[in-house]
């Protein structure tokens, strides 16, 4: 086996492990945070601060009986949880975690890039896989052979298609600004500090990092709202609105298959925040403190920075869930089609005009 193949396998299994451990942490964190915001205690029995609660829940779900409704469509019913999980793992492959690393294997130097795969069409890959994820919800809803899941599935397909359009359109100005579809290039285009031609502002502005969130703040807002809707989180969780639809598309799923949907939802949430951090908050960029810290610690600083940014965004996700009430269905559709899509189109044209001026100057000069 060639060394490149081994490196690829090691990277893939590392990403799998990181995502699974992260999910355990994330579910515990969400329950604790929501409990704190609602003046409750939250899980506190299993392990220190209840951190092993998720592990206990997972074991419980694995040991549970799996029930399939009689009227279920067998093939599609079994396919749906797999279709939920696979895209969520695949999306994380394109998120850059740090700068290139030089390692020496048996006398030969290898440059290992700290990313699953650096695709030159990374943004499109992300959008394509998140549109594949819609199938799992639609199929789960339809194949259960029950009315509440079907309603949840129909709602989900309409919602996810609508917000995908807004999400894709809000990313286009960022791509224009960075000049690349590769996520590695988008991160490296955000290194350094902001600069401006206005002399008074330049000294103040030069302390601010050149992250896309500052010039593209409207695109960031649209993308973040669309991201919350895309992963079906509150206040856009009409797909599984408990008061109306029992459990939505996964009502008829139990045991391990339910755990797969649950896992996919949290991995998708984590992915969305990591992608937002990569597009708008400079990804892994940040001070590495090479002068103060030992080289091993400063080498993993990029991962820590990405983690800090991702978990700050995840905190906002949980915060929104704990505070905002659910939208009505027509309000959801209006927000998507009548507010977010026109706003992202206008912002796209404005950014294109500004970038055109910078690149080519005034049209009449």
């Amino acid at each position, binding site marked *: 086996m060639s060394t490149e193949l081994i490196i690829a396998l090691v990277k893939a299994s590392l990403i799998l492990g990181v995502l699974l451990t992260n999910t355990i942490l994330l579910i515990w964190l969400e329950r604790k945070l929501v409990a704190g915001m609602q003046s409750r205690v939250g899980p506190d029995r299993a392990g220190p601060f209840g951190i092993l609660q998720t592990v206990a829940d997972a074991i419980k779900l694995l040991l549970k009986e799996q029930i399939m409704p009689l009227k279920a469509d067998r093939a599609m019913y079994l396919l749906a949880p797999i279709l939920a999980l696979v895209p969520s793992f695949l999306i994380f492959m394109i998120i850059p975690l740090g700068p290139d690393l030089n390692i020496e294997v048996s006398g030969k130097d290898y440059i290992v890039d700290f990313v699953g795969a650096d695709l030159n069409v990374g943004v499109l890959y992300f959008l394509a896989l998140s*549109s594949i994820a819609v199938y799992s919800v639609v199929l789960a809803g*339809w194949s259960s052979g029950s009315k509440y899941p079907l309603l949840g599935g129909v709602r989900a397909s309409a919602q996810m298609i609508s917000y*995908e359009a807004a999400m894709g359109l809000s990313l286009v100005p960022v791509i224009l600004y960075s000049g690349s579809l590769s996520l590695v290039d988008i991160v490296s285009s955000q290194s350094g500090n902001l600069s401006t031609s206005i002399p008074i502002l330049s000294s103040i502005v030069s302390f601010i990092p050149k992250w896309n969130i500052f010039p593209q703040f409207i695109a960031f807002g649209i993308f973040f709202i669309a991201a919350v809707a895309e992963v079906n989180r509150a206040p856009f969780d009409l797909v599984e609105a408990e008061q109306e639809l029992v459990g939505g598309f996964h009502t008829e799923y139990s045991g391990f298959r339910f755990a797969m949907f649950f896992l996919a939802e949290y991995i998708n949430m984590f992915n969305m925040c990591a992608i937002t951090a990569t597009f708008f908050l400079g990804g892994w960029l940040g001070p590495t403190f090479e002068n103060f810290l030992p080289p091993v610690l400063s080498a993993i600083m990029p991962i820590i920075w990405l983690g800090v940014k991702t978990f700050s965004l995840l905190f906002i996700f949980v915060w929104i869930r704990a505070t905002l009430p659910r939208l009505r269905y027509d309000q959801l559709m209006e927000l998507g089609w009548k507010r977010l899509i026109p706003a992202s189109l206008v912002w796209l044209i404005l950014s294109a005009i500004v970038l055109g001026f910078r690149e080519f100057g005034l049209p009449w000069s």
Partner: protein
Amino acid sequence: MVEALLFFAPASLIIIGALIVIFARNPVHNAMGLVMTLVSLAIIYITLNATFVAMVQMLVYAGAVMTLFLFVIMMIGVDKKEQSTDSIKGQTYLVSGVFLILISLLAYVAVSSDFKWDLWFAPTENNIEGTPQLIAGFLFTEWIFPFEIISILLIVATAAAIALAYDIKKRNSNA
């Protein structure tokens, strides 16, 4: 070895998916068979270095078009039994006749021309990577005229769809 695997696995999935589209009784299974075909086709595009085309294939066909198909199928309901009687008289005979003519035409062309069943042609040196930059370069220079015509066509279609869906009478009575 890896290349052969990366060709034959998706290629056989394409054929299986296409057969599901034709033979499955349930409309949702048909639609999912088509999704399987389209996604496997995208994998073939990736092995041909056409990453941009592969991603657009996934995004547009597998992502958007087929989701809408599935949505429509679910909305109109799939519980209805398939029509077993011909809606057009003699449809079966007509279709089989046309099919036989087409097959014999294809067989005649294959036999009469010097077509060889040698699928193992040598790899070419000319490796072009289908990057977005390359495709955009062709699209916005050489092919700008067809590109603009298609954009006009799409705008006309969008305007027509809105005009069809927009109920003017209802709007007026509400106001």
